[in-house]
């Protein structure tokens, strides 16, 4: 526990940091004590702003999509429905998340390590490339030249500029990742941190390493596809395309997981002064992500021709699901760090006083806690079950799949990012949060909305409803089909959940925009509306396990998982025989 972020912040006085930074180019934060390079601060701001704009584009599209699939309204026509599915996917899953992650990488490398930004000019080039990519791809989609879905499975063909836009964006992101490593190198050379990297930066480094692998897969598939769309390459094998595309599509989600988990640890530290109860194990779990996520694309080929069962089973699990294990370790380590810290603050009564007396009114804290619950109970359980070769038969390409990743990416990653933004506003944008009252219940609203949306989609998928499908009454087809009548109920629930989540995102965007552009300036620690907790005191007496409450919650989680597991296998066993 020797290397928490604030300690490394405090160490700056003893280290020759200033030598690398010209006075006038940095400010010393009057709240955290960090030396903040002004050029990295500007880059963090720019990337954060771009991410919020992408999120806005994504959720407006999302609302229109929800009200199209909700059959009584059936808002958009088929053309615009598919167009906006493509648009939503790209803006939500790629632009919003990666812009935010680049901002996070700059924050974790430059600010937390008290180091100057290695090359601000290159940082702006990266940013310009990413923005150019965003604008280009989005315009092409809205012009109707790329109705190919985010996955753009060949031989569906989009306009070449669509692929070029994504390539530009990816190149920009890759440069951003390289700059992150550049900052780490400077910090290491100038010894601006203690013995080892703070856990949060360590986690972000994991995310950055996975990002390099992922972006390489992306280049491997998007560049040939771009040439194919120009007519320079005759043919792209559709099965090979799908295999490599998911090397980008799924592995990139592991970037999100690593970044999100890093933020979880950070929020534990900021809100209650918590640190991992076993930091070595936490670090090892991050390494497991790097080592065992390389063939995540296998999850998407479970019911495909071309690859054998042995290949599928091995590559989705490596015999023991080490990437899943890593997530389970974090899902235990993060709440236990809260529990351990809270208990040391004296909230020691019973099993759950640490939880009931937790800083729930701090939106960053409630976001993180809700994100952990949603990620584990909704995204995690379904992820493992749907990712098994045989059970995949009953969910492949149904709406249960987007239901699953609404649990992981939307409740998990997006809510976490929204939560940490409440700290970024005062510390990086130096503004007070306007509308704290609203901010307190925004995470709850978002959690309820997406949980409803996500669970309804999973149930609908289990009832056979396809994803990316404009009209589940099959109008104009030679036959028709009526799904189980229960679908009507879940469509309504999904529509309600989507609406609630939309309102919550609008509240969040409203708070962020008003605070950042019109909020009162922060002039010192007195203006900080959220707590910055000191490190929790050491335990007075050591009796029994440090975090019994978390252990109990973990067992409940495992029971839920097992229940869902057997339910799914039971459903599978009731289908036709196939081999």
């Amino acid at each position, binding site marked *: 526990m020797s290397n928490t972020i604030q300690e490394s912040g405090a160490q700056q006085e003893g280290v020759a940091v200033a030598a690398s930074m010209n006075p006038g180019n940095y400010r010393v934060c009057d709240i955290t004590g960090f030396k903040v390079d002004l050029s990295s601060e500007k880059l963090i701001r720019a990337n954060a702003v771009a991410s919020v704009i992408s999120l806005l584009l994504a959720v407006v599209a999302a609302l229109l999509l929800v009200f199209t699939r909700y059959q009584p309204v059936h808002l958009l026509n088929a053309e615009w429905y598919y167009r906006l599915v493509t648009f939503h996917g790209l803006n939500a899953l790629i632009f919003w998340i990666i812009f935010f992650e680049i901002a996070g990488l700059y924050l974790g490398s430059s600010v937390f390590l008290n180091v100057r930004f290695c090359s601000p000019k290159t940082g702006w080039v990266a940013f310009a490339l990413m923005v150019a990519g965003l604008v280009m791809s989005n315009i092409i989609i809205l012009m109707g030249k790329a109705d190919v879905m985010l996955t753009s499975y060949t031989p569906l063909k989009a306009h070449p500029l669509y692929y070029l836009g994504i390539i530009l964006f990816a190149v920009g992101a890759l440069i951003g990742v390289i700059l992150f490593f550049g900052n780490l190198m400077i910090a290491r050379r100038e010894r601006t941190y203690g013995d080892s990297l703070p856990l949060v930066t360590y986690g972000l480094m994991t995310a950055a390493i996975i990002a390099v692998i992922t972006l390489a897969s992306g280049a491997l598939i998007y560049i040939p596809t771009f040439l194919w769309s120009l007519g320079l390459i005759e043919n792209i094998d559709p099965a090979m395309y799908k295999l490599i595309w998911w090397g980008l599509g799924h592995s990139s989600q592991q970037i999100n997981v690593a970044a999100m988990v890093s933020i979880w640890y950070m929020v534990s530290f900021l809100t209650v002064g918590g640190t991992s109860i076993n930091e070595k194990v936490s670090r090892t779990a991050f390494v497991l992500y790097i080592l065992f996520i390389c063939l995540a694309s296998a999850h998407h080929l479970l019911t495909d021709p071309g690859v054998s069962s042995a290949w599928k089973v091995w590559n989705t699990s490596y015999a023991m699901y080490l990437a899943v294990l890593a997530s389970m370790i974090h899902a*235990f380590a993060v709440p236990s760090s809260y529990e351990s810290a809270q208990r040391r603050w004296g909230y020691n009564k019973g099993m759950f006083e640490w939880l009931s007396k937790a800083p729930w009114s701090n939106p960053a804290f409630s976001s993180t806690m809700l994100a952990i619950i949603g990620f584990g109970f909704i995204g995690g359980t379904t992820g493992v079950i749907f990712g098994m070769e045989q059970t995949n038969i009953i969910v*492949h*390409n*149904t709406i249960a799949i987007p239901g699953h990743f609404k649990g992981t990416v939307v409740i998990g990653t997006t809510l976490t990012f929204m939560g940490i933004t409440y700290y970024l506003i005062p510390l990086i944008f130096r503004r007070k949060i306007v509308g704290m009252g609203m901010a307190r219940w925004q995470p709850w609203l978002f959690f309820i909305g997406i949980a409803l949306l996500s669970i309804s989609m999973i149930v609908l998928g289990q009832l056979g409803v396809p994803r990316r499908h404009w009209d589940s009454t099959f109008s104009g087809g030679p036959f028709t089909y009526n799904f189980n009548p229960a679908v009507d109920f879940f469509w309504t629930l999904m529509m309600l959940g989507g609406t609630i989540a939309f309102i919550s995102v609008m509240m969040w965007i409203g708070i962020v925009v008003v605070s950042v552009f019109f909020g009162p300036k922060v002039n010192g620690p007195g203006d900080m509306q959220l707590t910055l907790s000191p490190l929790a005191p050491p335990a007075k007496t050591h009796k029994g396990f440090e975090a019994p409450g978390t252990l109990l919650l973990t067992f409940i989680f495992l029971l839920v998982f097992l229940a869902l597991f057997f339910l799914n296998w039971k459903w599978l066993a009731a289908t036709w025989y196939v081999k």
Partner: protein
Amino acid sequence: MLIALVLCIMLFVWMVMWHVYGKQNPSSTTYKTSTVEFTELTEAYTKQNMIGQDNGIPVVRPEPNSDVFLMAEMWRWSPVLVLEINQAYRMHISSKDIVHGLSIQPVNMNFQVYPSYDYVLEFKPTEAGEYRVVCNEFCGIGHHTMIGKIVVIEKEEDLKLYGYENFKKAATPVKTEDNKPMSEADMALMGEQVFTLKGCGACHKTDGSALIGPSWKGLYGKEEKVKENGKEMTVKVDDAYIRESILEPSRKITVGFEQTMMPQMAVTDEEINQIIAYMKTL
């Protein structure tokens, strides 16, 4: 941690054991093919085994334990299959054009379908009834109209439930004698078969309702507004125009149907004549 690790290892063992003891496992048999080859195979198979048609889609009743061809194309599943309960069928599944998703409802079994990969899945239906084949991989603007049918029967009488009781296997609807020109009526019957086999019905209805393409009802002899190189003009739908539309679909496009281009169809001159004869009867 240990519990988690043990659980993870158990999950792996479970998947392997299901291959030994379970009844539902995705097959590992795939053949490389081409869209042209697979289309020819399916058409030949369907033509030989067709016992009738249902809403413009040929109906085939395969022998148990035989090889069955099921083709996905924009936007239909062909043929409709009549299967017997508890009998195994080796289904060869592939696509004529782009990637599709095979989704059998309500049993909810889902598999990916690629062009140029022939995926062989051996199905054994365990319950009688009427099933639908939905497409669940986005395949263009008509994706939602792509729905096929599988019927599983327990006994012969079950065919009545679906109106299939009088369906009989007939290789060709008309006996062709050498050197003798067919009558217009026979030509029209042959044309209807071409319409069914080639999947024209996925876009063109024959009941007057416009779908992705213009309806064929009363189309022959009609004056249609079309666009050629962006210029609007009126043409009469006659033999020459129909022939040109089939051979060069994107040359003249009917006003109101500019959104979706008709694909190049592989048809012979003789088949075009039969289609024209068929259109005259509508």
